């Protein structure tokens, strides 16, 4: 089966600019996750969608980050305005159903550098 797709793979922006990332999950997967992975750390969940509804966004910095999953398939994550500390790899993952015990399938990630 095709894996989770993400684009772009790399992005370099200056602080205060905006940026958007796109994710296409595995076909049929109801649950989609966005993680932030700062260098030297493990992935940290930003937001979890079940179909097109938000399950958990408790760690999403809502003053600058937003995410949507229209039609319950693709998703976009936006940062506006970006800060230096947003430099990280942004990982998208999907699973067949919700529940944290289900195997998550990860995309290749988008490496963001904020200058």
């Amino acid at each position, binding site marked *: 089966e095709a894996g989770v797709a993400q684009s772009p793979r790399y992005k370099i922006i200056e602080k205060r600019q905006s940026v958007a990332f796109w994710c296409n999950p595995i076909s049929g997967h109801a649950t989609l996750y966005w993680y932030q992975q700062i260098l*030297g750390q*493990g992935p940290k969940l930003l937001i979890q969608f079940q179909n097109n509804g938000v399950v958990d966004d408790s760690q999403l910095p809502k003053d600058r980050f937003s995410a949507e999953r229209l039609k319950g398939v693709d998703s976009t994550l936006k940062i506006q305005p970006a800060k230096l500390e947003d430099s990280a790899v942004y990982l998208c993952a999907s699973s067949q159903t919700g529940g*944290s015990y289900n195997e998550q399938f*990860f995309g290749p990630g988008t490496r963001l550098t904020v200058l």
Partner: protein
Amino acid sequence: AQRVTQPEKLLSVFKGAPVELKCNYSYSGSPELFWYVQYSRQRLQLLLRHISRESIKGFTADLNKGETSFHLKKPFAQEEDSAMYYCALAGAQKLVFGQGTRLTINP
């Protein structure tokens, strides 16, 4: 609160030697634990989960609730085991990852 600690950022062993990657957790409920692995230039992927009680690529992990640990072990390391390993704890609705251990197998 959920917390996962991997005390070793780097671990280097020789081929054929035993490997143990440490993972300790903190969680008030009944834990579900996983090991995810990321090989060079590949995606993060599930290696094994404790509920399956399986051995994958020669690796095993036993949940020790008394010591709140879920260490990953392999009796004889192979060069292809070189990778980044993350321990993860599933609780409530989300998966919480440790900081990861970079395992290097020397020939």
